[in-house]
């Protein structure tokens, strides 16, 4: 298997997904999906609900175990000891790979018994073994960036949805991840707080973070993505630059999808 098979960008691929298949019972959720995210690029995954976007993202860091296919983070095969083998990673090895990816969840998934600051330093301290003062310093810098430094000692329950999600993003960034995975980060938010989260994501994209984003925010995708991957029924239907995808999609399926969104 060569990189060239899916290396449709210029930079080196940070994340590669090859022939990913996942079924739940009789339901084929992902059917041979391949894509790659090059270093510093933002790839947006679009598609109707239930098309397999979130499952794809969850397979990338092995929260769901794919049935077939391979995932590479840089040179590392996720889930297996080495590229060719079928020897599964140990829990510790898997944890080490996961720690190199930052994930932002639709429902934030903050830990409610920890303060904002504690939420952010927990994994850096205990997974990356950073000393506390260094972890705190990084967390405070990140909180300033997402505009929530004054909330550092609050519990998540005191925050609005948009604030929670910005903490979620800061928590992911604190791991200094090679790739950021966003799983519908604005879908659980009130319309008026969507903007503040989108603004943070936009900044991250422009400063050259490597991002794989599942989203329904068409404007964000259009303006920020380097590539659009359109998925329907577990298959990639279309892969193109955003200008092209939004202006004249190749497929009927994508046209219908976009029509529904522009009507709203």
């Amino acid at each position, binding site marked *: 298997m060569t990189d060239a098979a899916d290396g449709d960008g210029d930079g080196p691929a940070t994340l590669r997904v090859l022939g990913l298949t996942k079924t739940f019972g009789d339901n084929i959720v992902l059917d041979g999906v391949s894509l790659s995210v090059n270093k510093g690029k933002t790839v947006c995954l679009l598609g109707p609900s239930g098309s397999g976007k979130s499952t794809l993202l969850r397979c990338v860091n092995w929260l769901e175990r794919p049935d077939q296919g391979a995932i590479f983070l840089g040179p590392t095969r996720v889930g297996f000891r080495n590229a060719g083998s079928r020897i599964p990673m140990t829990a510790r090895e898997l944890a080490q790979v*996961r720690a190199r990816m930052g*994930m932002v969840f639709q429902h934030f*998934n903050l830990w*409610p*018994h920890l*303060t904002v600051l504690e939420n952010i330093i927990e*994994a850096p301290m*205990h997974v990356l073994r950073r000393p506390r003062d260094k972890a705190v310093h990084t967390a405070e810098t990140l909180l300033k960036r997402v505009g929530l430094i004054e909330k550092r000692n609050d519990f998540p*329950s005191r925050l609005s949805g948009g604030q929670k999600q910005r903490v979620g993003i800061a928590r992911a960034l604190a*791991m200094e991840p090679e790739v950021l995975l966003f799983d519908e980060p604005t879908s659980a938010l009130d319309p008026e707080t969507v903007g503040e989260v989108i603004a943070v994501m936009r900044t991250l994209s422009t400063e050259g973070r490597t991002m794989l984003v599942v989203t329904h925010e068409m404007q964000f995708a259009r303006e920020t993505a380097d590539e659009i991957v359109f998925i329907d029924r577990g298959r990639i239907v279309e892969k193109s630059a955003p200008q092209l995808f939004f202006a004249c999609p190749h497929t009927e399926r994508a046209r219908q999808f976009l029509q529904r969104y522009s009507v709203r």
Partner: protein
Amino acid sequence: MTSADLISLLQGAAVTVALSLAAIVIGVPLGLGFAILVWRRIPLVQLIVKTYVSLIRATPLVTLGLLIYFALPAVGLQTGPVTAAILTLAINTTAFNCEIWRAGLMDFPKDQLDSAQAFGMSWPHTFRRIMLPQLARTCLPALVNEMTLLLKGSPAIAVVGIVDVTRAAVRIGANTYEPLPPFLLATALYAAIVFVFVRAQRWLERPSKLDEVRV
């Protein structure tokens, strides 16, 4: 009632508290351990735990006490009444605690475990830092409730020859032909002990930063 009677009642109370506490100290963590085995669906082991819980829930304490007291020597284990009593209470309360912890585990938000996993946390770390602080909080009222039930069920262990509060009261009543005073006092002693348990629970639940946990 003489002062000697009073002392024997208080001694009985001390025995009741000591044996119950011993059972609690064994039963609360062991119940949690069993609950985790069931929750993680460890094959065979979960079946054994489930059977244990069903059997114990169906067995009266008195019967269990006698069974243990007489069964253990039969398999070559010599136990005194105190060991038999603690074993009886612990085996009983572990089963109920297991169910309480299991309910807490099953209700635990999967979301939080996803994020712990996604950030590379190990299972022991996730359990200790993410789950346990919240579980202890949600399970505490039910656990204390079970403790008070255990305490009030403890007179059953008199069958193996332990003199607890109730047994002491029975003896005094039989000697003095005035059963009312010792039983009134015994009742008051139980109430006082349970009161202490409930106060301890309130103290643990005191308004604190954890109050803000509810999302």
